[in-house]
């Protein structure tokens, strides 16, 4: 692919900082906190807000958004052996996996009334997925979700976001030692929805966390998947797929904090953009702390720009405080749709719209195949087809 071909107005920047003065921590406008009052109202020039259209956040960032009490339904379906509870703000299990790092996440933490806690007891291996359906009916809501797996438990969680809502939320994933958790979060919102969320994963000793973030819909979607570890041998795979259409802002800001020795992280996010004003932002921060010897990390972001008028900002960033590691790398590419590929396929009799479909499907197929959950893979391929139909029709 013509990956050196960066569309006008886009950035693909990468950096490897070694004990530099500018780090993820120093670039944030305030240290992490559960209290919204600890964060100034952003004005848009802050490092963590500079790509985000604040005026489209419907007041989530400045305290003017008020929960409507209804207009957002959350239904949790869990197989036998799983505990599902609604708990109050003072429940000790909340907020253990991470602290809000920006004002909207802190706003969500300060404003939610009830949290949902899903617990998979230790050594329980689920054969059926836990399904969480989040459906918006025009409301504004602040949410908190905890998914906790005991030691050696195994689970697949599918979170579906549909409908229209203004939602700010935090999700905690807590993995006990040796636990295996796969979470698929699908943002298939209607066109007007605004969704800002922080996902905190705390990965136990020898535990495996796999996150699949799929963003198709919404007016503004800004997600903050974050990972840290509690013991050696932890593994995190973060996969993402987005299809940004005209006028949509889809922002994925990842952080993997290698705060523990001998852990692994692997990040692959791929996105396609089409239409005027489509804007995708990908921030990939990886920290390797001084104590995190034996770390093995790689992160990649690829973008395929299908039409003029769309914009990608892709910023991988690796901060390394120890040289005693197995590997650390990153890659970011943004390419236009490759006319030579199109010509080659068309020269074999394949009509243009079908040729485009083949190429885009091919672009995503590699990633989809890594998800490892056949019915989810199938569903994503169907969804990609639908997006493409809309695009090439």
């Amino acid at each position, binding site marked *: *692919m013509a990956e050196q071909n960066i569309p006008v107005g886009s950035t693909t920047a990468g950096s490897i900082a070694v004990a530099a003065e500018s780090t993820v921590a120093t670039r944030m406008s305030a240290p992490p906190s559960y209290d919204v009052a600890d964060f100034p109202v952003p004005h848009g020039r802050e490092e963590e807000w500079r790509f985000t259209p604040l005026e489209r956040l419907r007041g989530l960032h400045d305290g003017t958004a008020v929960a409507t009490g209804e207009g957002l339904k959350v239904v949790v379906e869990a197989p036998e052996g799983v505990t599902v509870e609604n708990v109050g703000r003072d429940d000790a299990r909340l907020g253990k996996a991470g602290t809000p790092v920006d004002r909207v996440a802190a706003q969500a933490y300060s404003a939610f009334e009830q949290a949902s806690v899903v617990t998979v007891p230790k050594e329980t291996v689920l054969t059926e997925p836990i399904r969480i359906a989040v459906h918006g009916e025009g409301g504004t809501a602040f949410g908190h979700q905890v998914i906790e797996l005991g030691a050696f438990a195994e689970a697949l969680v599918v979170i579906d976001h549909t409908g229209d809502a203004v939602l700010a939320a935090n999700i905690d994933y807590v993995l006990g030692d040796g636990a295996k958790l796969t979470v698929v979060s699908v943002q298939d919102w209607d066109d007007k929805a605004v969704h800002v969320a922080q996902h905190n994963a705390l990965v136990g000793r020898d535990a495996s966390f796999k996150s699949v973030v799929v963003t198709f819909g919404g007016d503004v979607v800004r997600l903050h998947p974050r990972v840290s570890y509690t013991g050696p041998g932890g593994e995190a795979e973060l996969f993402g797929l987005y299809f940004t259409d005209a006028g949509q802002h889809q922002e994925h800001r990842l952080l993997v904090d290698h705060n523990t020795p001998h852990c692994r992280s692997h990040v692959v996010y791929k996105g396609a953009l089409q239409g005027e004003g489509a804007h995708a932002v990908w921030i990939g921060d990886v920290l390797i702390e001084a104590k995190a010897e034996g770390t093995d990390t790689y992160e990649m972001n690829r973008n395929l720009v299908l039409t003029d008028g769309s914009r990608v900002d892709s910023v991988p960033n690796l901060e390394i405080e120890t040289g005693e590691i197995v590997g650390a790398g990153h890659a970011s590419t943004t390419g236009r749709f*490759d*006319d*030579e*590929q199109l*010509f*080659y*396929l*068309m*020269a*074999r*009799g*394949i*009509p*243009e719209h*079908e*040729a485009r479909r*083949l*190429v885009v*499907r*091919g*672009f*995503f*197929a*590699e990633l989809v195949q890594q998800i490892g959950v056949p019915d989810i893979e199938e569903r994503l391929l169907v969804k990609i087809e639908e997006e493409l139909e809309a695009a090439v029709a």
Partner: protein
Amino acid sequence: MATLEIRDLHVTVEADNATKEILKGVDLTVKQGETHAIMGPNGSGKSTLAYSLAGHPKYTVTGGTVTLDGEDVLAMSVDERARAGLFLAMQYPVEVPGVSVSNFLRTSATAVRGEAPKLRTWVKEVKENMERLHMDPSFAERNVNEGFSGGEKKRHEILQLELLKPQVAILDETDSGLDVDALRIVSEGVNRVRETGETGTLLITHYTRILRYIKPDFVHVFSGGRIVESGGPELADKLENEGYEAYTKGGVSA
């Protein structure tokens, strides 16, 4: 009988903010069953002719006509040309990541034949053709041209030629970069198609080497954007001995 007729074809390309005329009046008729070799020095416009006939968007036709059985080829889109029976085996086939060879071949055959080939006969057909081209079955599961060696790319092009059975096949420097074994295998594939008598072949090459394996009925010397001499196979022997110097002298830009 299918006939490709090229009349006074003029083609330009945009380069460095300037329009440059590459083809300066090409005349050529290729009939079904005939094999024409087009030979010429680098930069003479041979590949431009091949890509212009296939409809590559980089090239602009500024004059002349191209017809296939009387149908206006220049009015057709790239895919329409292929479905009408034109095939271009490319010198530098591009990678298509994430698209498997088997998916690609079947999609292409479905488009060109107008209906999806019956699965059972199709699998057998592909398998037999791949065997004849000494291609490992695992090839079908690889992504199109991704990580292919030069020889694998060319075999893959000829595999498509044999499966799509075009009326006119344009082979753009199919011989370049091949070792002797690969050249022989690829040439045998081209000859199988020629022996059907159903396909007209336009063999574009810089070297006479491939003509030991594929015997042309006509040889044309291409220089300065047009055909400057035409003859039978003996013309190739002359080029073998004397090179292109006689044609490139006299101010024709390379």
